[in-house]
């Protein structure tokens, strides 16, 4: 028996969301009295043995260049073989882009019940029940998993990474790797920016900023905080900002530690994309903006005056610290 954790990597570097999945899987293995094992696919430059500090005892590696890009069919085949080889009773993924492509396929292949978007460790005293977000973060469901094997994908930024001491045994896993059917022909990463779904802090702008030429104050604040930038739907639709920055029910859903909303009124569809944020700050000149009801801190004031002052105040705090 084991808990098998899928370790997602990009260009050889293990993703932050996978460290959360590793910590979660290791804690679950302790709870179940079993071992935590990892599976990593493709060529990795990170030190895999060092991932032992997140509580994983063994890491299976399939170092095959065909796995350097994601073909969900191929990934699911290899991960399912690893699950069988390690007698996994639970397979854990991050509910990130790769997890969304692969976890469901692995679940169907293993005839395992899937909890997608989990946000807490399972209750295992009486059955196996996992808490997950539903209704775009507006509620939670407790889902009973009825099958012998379970698959869980963990919401990014919902489980704290804990690093202690430890070294994992890294072993090559002998599995069949078919020819990928999905051929990646181009990768277009937005360089120099913090990826939105991985960011600890997100600074987001709405129509209150009046036009794309006014985004400088927001970008300065984001830069000072090392934050990712985002926007509301009308801003994306008007092409003031690129579509991939649109946060909300039909855009990207984020769950950072801090979400700063500037000139966004806070329509229910926008809140659905941000309500898993730990701390929300709203800056809006309209005291009636519905966003204030969902905020932890707020400033009723003109963004064009408040935001540059905020950037300066943060600079000052950092200089003093």
């Amino acid at each position, binding site marked *: 028996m084991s808990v098998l954790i899928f370790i997602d990597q*990009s260009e050889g570097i293990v*993703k932050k969301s996978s460290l959360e999945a590793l910590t979660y899987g290791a804690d679950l293995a302790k709870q179940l009295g079993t071992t935590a094992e990892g599976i990593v696919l493709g060529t990795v430059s990170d030190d895999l043995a060092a991932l032992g500090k997140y509580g994983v005892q063994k890491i299976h590696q399939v170092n095959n260049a065909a796995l350097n*890009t994601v073909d*969900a*069919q191929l990934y699911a085949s290899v991960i399912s073989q690893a699950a069988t080889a390690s007698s996994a009773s639970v397979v854990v993924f991050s*509910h990130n*882009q790769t997890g*969304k*492509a692969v976890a*469901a*396929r692995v*679940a*169907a*292949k293993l005839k*395992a*019940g*899937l*909890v997608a*978007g989990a946000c807490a460790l399972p209750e295992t005293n009486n059955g196996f029940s996992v808490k997950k977000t*539903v*209704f*775009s973060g*507006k*509620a939670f*469901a*407790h*889902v*009973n998993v*009825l099958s012998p094997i379970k698959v869980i994908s963990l919401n990014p930024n919902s489980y704290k990474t804990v690093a202690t001491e430890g070294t994992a045994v890294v072993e090559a896993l002998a599995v069949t790797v078919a020819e990928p*059917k*999905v*051929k*990646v*022909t181009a*990768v*277009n*990463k*937005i360089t120099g*920016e913090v*990826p*939105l779904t991985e960011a600890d802090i997100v600074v987001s702008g709405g129509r209150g900023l009046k036009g794309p030429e006014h985004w400088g104050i927001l970008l300065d604040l984001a830069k000072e905080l090392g934050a990712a930038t985002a926007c509301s739907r009308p801003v994306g639709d008007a092409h003031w900002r690129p*579509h*991939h920055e649109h946060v909300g*029910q*039909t855009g990207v859903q984020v769950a950072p530690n*801090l979400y700063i909303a500037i000139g966004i009124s806070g329509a*229910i569809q926008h809140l*659905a994309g941000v309500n898993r944020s730990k*701390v929300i*700050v709203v800056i809006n000149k309209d005291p009636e903006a519905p966003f204030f009801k969902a905020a*932890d*801190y*707020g*400033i*009723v*004031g003109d963004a064009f005056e408040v935001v540059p*002052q905020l950037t300066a105040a*943060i600079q*000052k*705090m950092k200089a003093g610290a």
Partner: protein
Amino acid sequence: MKILVCVSKTPDTTSKIAFTDGNTKFDEAGVQWIINPYDEWYSLVRAIELKESNPAATIHLVTVGNADAEPIIRKALALGGDEAIRVNTDNSDAYYIAAQIAEVAKQGGYDIIFTGKETIDYNGSSIGGMIAELVDAPYISLATKFDLNGNTATVVREIEGGEETAEVALPVVVSCQKGMAEQRIPNMRGIMAARTKPLKVVEPAAIDALTSIASFELPPAKAGVKLVAPDNVAELVRLLHEEAKAI
């Protein structure tokens, strides 16, 4: 060419989320039902666009749900699509639903199966991947573009911090999101035509659900916003640093 578009019924995006029966059931009182936005705006409209450039293509819609789902599937037919199939069962387990759609898909022999990237109620992002596994086809998730060149699809999909372009031969299963197409509104001709389009009801295949929802829970209410004067941003920085420990 045959396209299958998976359509789900979801509560309107502005619905109040509440639960009944000791928090075991979603409270449907006063809820407006809509086509899941990702299914409608992106996957269905992209399928219609593909048919517009290739009139020989046929579009079938499939939904897994009881008779309550018929108004939304008629609305989907009013937007476009040639006929619809409703699998007559009510279940929220992703595997159960995906397996029902996979049965329909195997009988129909489709070249493309479109789903939305997730439903806005259960947010599992799971159905497309499961269907793909059950029909043994490649799967492109979170697609923002889909173009056809003969039997090969060129797709753009979201990855962490960007996007990538990929090629895959049909048949393929694709989950669709923003970027694929622009929202359309059904016109009167479409609405009239939808009334007479075939809507076939089939009984579900015998499949065991692998999960069930035990209960729901609402998040604790926010304590209320702490307002800071606009001329005192230093206080906001102090609160974020010392109290919230967010910076």
